[in-house]
């Protein structure tokens, strides 16, 4: 097996008990080492099912998933998979177990049977990596949503994972909390080379990924860089997903005849294109 591949899905389908249609059907994908991959889709598209499959919380009804070299359907690998591919969830309140921040970060280590004297340095360095050292002795319920999610990230980080799966972990946060968590995870991706699977319905977040998988009605419907994905404004509208406002504005201007380049995502990029097409002359 290619050692660059962190996660491989081969024709994966998953049907919930007593459900008529599969929540995810015939999904195939490869996630590479060090990559920041966004999975974009609306509620009920199957993106959360995908997340749970990657963590061996669900086992595919058909097909096969290999995470860090381990087949998720094999019972004996379950704990190794969960250690190597840690997951953070949507509701910040419902994933913190302990009554003190540092003890919550240690929860995973306790479960793995890490010796007590090794725990403290790992807990401390994980909290430092998410900039939460100051709150090590705080009670979690007094933290903001963004801070709680960073504690959750630290809890995963302490287990020294290869992959971080974020299952809509910003959906319940305000804009500053969202930015705080995304920035933290992005810096872990860049500095520590942790592979990230970022599941979201916010296109602003997906736009910052290396690559996007778009999920709709239980299928992976497209795949590509943010520029490739968002350029197809019509397609995204059909899927009830947002496109960056500057991308859709640029699209409309192109339709009006203005020869803007494809793949504009940000305010800066559109401003530059306007400058190129309408050079300032003295007098305007």
């Amino acid at each position, binding site marked *: 097996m290619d050692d660059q591949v962190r996660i491989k899905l081969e024709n994966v389908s998953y049907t919930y008990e007593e459900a008529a249609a599969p929540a995810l059907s015939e999904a195939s994908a490869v996630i590479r080492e060090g990559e920041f991959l966004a999975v974009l889709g609306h509620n009920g598209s199957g993106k959360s099912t995908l997340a*749970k499959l990657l*963590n061996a*919380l669900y086992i595919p009804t058909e097909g096969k998933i290999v995470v860090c070299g381990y087949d998720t359907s094999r019972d004996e690998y379950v*704990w190794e998979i*969960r*250690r190597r591919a*840690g*997951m953070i*969830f949507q*509701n910040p*309140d*419902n*994933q*913190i*177990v*302990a*009554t*003190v921040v*540092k*003890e919550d970060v*240690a*929860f*995973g*280590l*306790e*479960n*793995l*049977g*890490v*010796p*007590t004297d090794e*725990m*403290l340095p790992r*807990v401390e360095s994980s909290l430092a990596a998410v900039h939460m050292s100051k709150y090590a002795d705080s*009670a*979690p*319920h007094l933290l903001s949503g963004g801070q709680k999610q960073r504690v959750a990230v630290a*809890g*995963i980080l302490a*287990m020294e994972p290869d992959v971080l799966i974020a299952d809509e972990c910003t959906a319940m946060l305000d804009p500053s909390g969202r930015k705080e968590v995304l920035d933290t995870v992005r810096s872990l991706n860049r500095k520590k080379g942790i592979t990230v699977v970022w599941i979201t319905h916010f296109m602003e977040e997906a736009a910052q990924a290396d690559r996007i998988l778009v999920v709709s009605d239980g299928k992976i419907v497209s795949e590509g860089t943010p520029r490739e994905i968002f350029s197809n404004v019509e397609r995204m509208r059909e899927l009830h997903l947002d496109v960056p406002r500057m991308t859709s504005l640029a699209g409309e201007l192109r339709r009006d005849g203005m020869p803007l380049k494809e793949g504009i995502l940000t305010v800066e990029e559109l401003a530059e294109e306007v400058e190129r097409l309408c050079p300032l002359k003295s007098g305007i």
Partner: protein
Amino acid sequence: MLTNITMGQYYPVDSPIHRLDPRMKLVLTIAFIVAVFLVHTIWGYLLILGFVYLSARLARIPFKMLIKGIKPLRMILILTFLLNLFFTPGDTVLVEFWIIRITLEALRQAVFYSLRLVFLVLGTSLLTLTTSPVALSDGIELLLGPLKKIHFPAHELAMMMTIALRFIPTLLDETDKIMKAQMARGADFESGNLISRAKSMVPLLVPLFVSAFRRAGELAMAMESRCYHGGSGRTRFRVLKLKKADWLACGVVALLIGLVVLEGILL
């Protein structure tokens, strides 16, 4: 607001008693209870009272706070006192009229039984006031640890306690929100008779239960995903170590028991 309710009755100050190992405190509390049952004279009770008073001083807990713990028990106390007073057989009659007959033996027993109850409560209050709920659940888990061999769920019990403690503030917060939301829809939680008030709780309790179950499901999944698989093979982040102070406290309680026994023999 509901969130202002204090957690348990832990009195968070720093003191030598607060710093004692929770396991030792649990064991010593049991020893103290035994001592209370061994007492047979008023001198013994004075000794016990002195011990409780000094411990409370050392723990920097206002004595009033300690006494407050007895309040909920006052009905039982009065009942114990009266039953013993009226129905203990004895010879030295103090008061007698109509069908009531109070003897010295009965009075003695009534006073002693009531005192026994009071000291039981004071002793356990001293434990809960000086030990945080988390430390308490740690202590219980470790003390009951040996019982795991006979499949006693000591770890599960402690885990349940920890999770309950973690979620109490969250659920209180949520109760407050749901209550306000229903009040905005015209719900009335305050007026009416008992039945209509009980009925008015439905719009509060149903959402609260639904949410508690949803939280439980999500938490279970999050715990599993962090490799939680019960107590076996698990290590601990917080370790408890018995220190000199613990053995000193142990010695003091041993002395107390010794004196109580001596008092029983000599007086």
